């Protein structure tokens, strides 16, 4: 195949182009290619619409029109790819856990060994679970169960409940020297930077303690 001839993009003249190009046939019948073309165009349109911050309102009812009303959620899921860092970060957010023992005060748990995928950054499953589900009680209860089980299998001191919290650390002001990011123990953060999202109630902890030590 002539190298020179193939450089044209797109081929402009029949005289030059017609003998020089060989088109690889696309798989499938014509109707399938048309259907795939339409599906591709709709996919791209959905990517664009999903990136819009506010869904448009319907005339008359004023109800927000959402794509999930017409597109199945499992399909729509793959279109949610374009909304990247849309807002300023108001805080640096970190998620932490504390263990609630039968006796004594709560203490910080290092849960990183129980979530080995990206354990040291915010792509950790622990961080992601709290990011998405921190206000969802069934998921937080499942997370509690998981952490308590794993910790009690490995830790010297048993726990019967946990507290899940976020740290909201202020963003440094530009122009003022600041330290490099590193994970610091929970006790280094003042109370006003902590927000508890889930905690096993003291009654439940006490009940579990009575069951363990009758």
């Amino acid at each position, binding site marked *: 195949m002539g190298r020179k001839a193939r450089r044209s993009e797109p081929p402009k003249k029949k005289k030059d182009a017609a003998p020089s190009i060989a*088109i690889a046939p*696309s798989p499938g019948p014509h109707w399938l290619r048309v259907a*795939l073309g339409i599906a591709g165009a709709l996919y791209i349109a959905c990517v664009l619409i999903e990136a819009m*911050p506010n869904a448009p309102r319907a005339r008359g009812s004023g109800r927000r029109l959402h794509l999930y009303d017409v597109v199945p959620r*499992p399909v729509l899921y793959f279109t949610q790819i374009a909304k*990247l860092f849309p807002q300023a970060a108001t805080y640096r957010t970190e998620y932490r856990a504390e263990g609630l023992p039968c006796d004594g005060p709560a203490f910080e748990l290092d849960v990183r060994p129980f979530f*080995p995928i990206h354990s040291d950054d915010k*792509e950790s499953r622990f961080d992601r679970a709290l990011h998405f589900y921190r206000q969802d009680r069934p998921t937080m209860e*499942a997370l509690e169960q998981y952490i308590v089980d794993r910790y009690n299998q490995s830790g010297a001191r048993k726990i019967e409940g946990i507290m899940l919290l976020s740290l909201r650390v202020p963003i440094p002001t530009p122009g003022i020297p600041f330290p490099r990011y590193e994970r610091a123990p929970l006790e280094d953060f003042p109370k006003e930077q902590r927000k508890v999202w889930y905690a096993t109630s003291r009654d439940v902890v006490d009940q579990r303690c009575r069951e363990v030590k009758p």
Partner: protein
Amino acid sequence: MSDHATAREPWGFTLPQPIERLEFIRVFAPLAILGFLSSRLVHVEHWITRVGFVVPERLGSDYRQPLYIPPVPVWLAVLVAVATVVSGLATSLGYRTRWASGIFAALLAYLALADRLEAFTVNKLGTVIVFAIFVAPAGARFSIDAWLRAKRQPEAPLPTHVHWGNVRFFQVLLALMYLGSGIAKASPDADSTRSLGDWFYPNTMWSHLHDSYQTPFTYFLAASVPAVAFNLFQYLTLAYELGAPIWFGVRRLRPFGLVFGLAMHASIGLMFGPVVWFALLMMVLLFGSFAPLAWLTRFFETAWAKITETAAGSSSSLAKAARE
């Protein structure tokens, strides 16, 4: 291609496209996706089995769990991980490309849907890219399939182009994905008191440099470059994303769109730790879609000549060894 068709298509949008564009994406996009998945696949038992934490089934419609897929046994998870790597590498090498890319796309879709916690832009977008490779004539050139076919039928002509949709899909997706990202940045959030999106106000980009994504390079830049430089880059990024259809739609502006996009993603890859795989995937799409054809052709012809020479050399030495 006829003159008639060209006259009907003054912009050439539906003219056949060089096969190099499709093959570049076929070779490199699976590698970026596998790079992203690698840190998850080595702990696959903590990902899609009950050894790790799994989100319980949610009742009703939930954007976080569009489809509940229960955890699988560890042996099956290991099989999924191995099949993902093998099919991804086979797609990249172009070995049984149709089967490999179909299996790879199906596994990527499963992994993205099975667990929201490990679903990011790379594996959601990656699923769609690999599906697009699956339905295109990918692997027709610069692949093991093409090499084997050429050995069987040396006289058969090698394809030089593909139908327009097989390349235009990636090009349009990229331009409109940037546009969508720009619109999201430029628009105020429903809860915001601001009249414009945060990216119109200073220090928005700066605010993202301080969490666990921070790399030594990020810290060096944040500590040594004046904030005004970050603001300049922030506004340039916003203009780039909002203007993407223009940068890529107007032929003369395309080199600018390509160079700025590559530089932007290189910066993202260097500054946001684990986001490097997303940066690489976007750079692959950008380069494959919009790089000057001469660069792609030179790259493939040089690499292909070396690979086929090596393959011919090793097969002749094998034959010689067998004779001896």
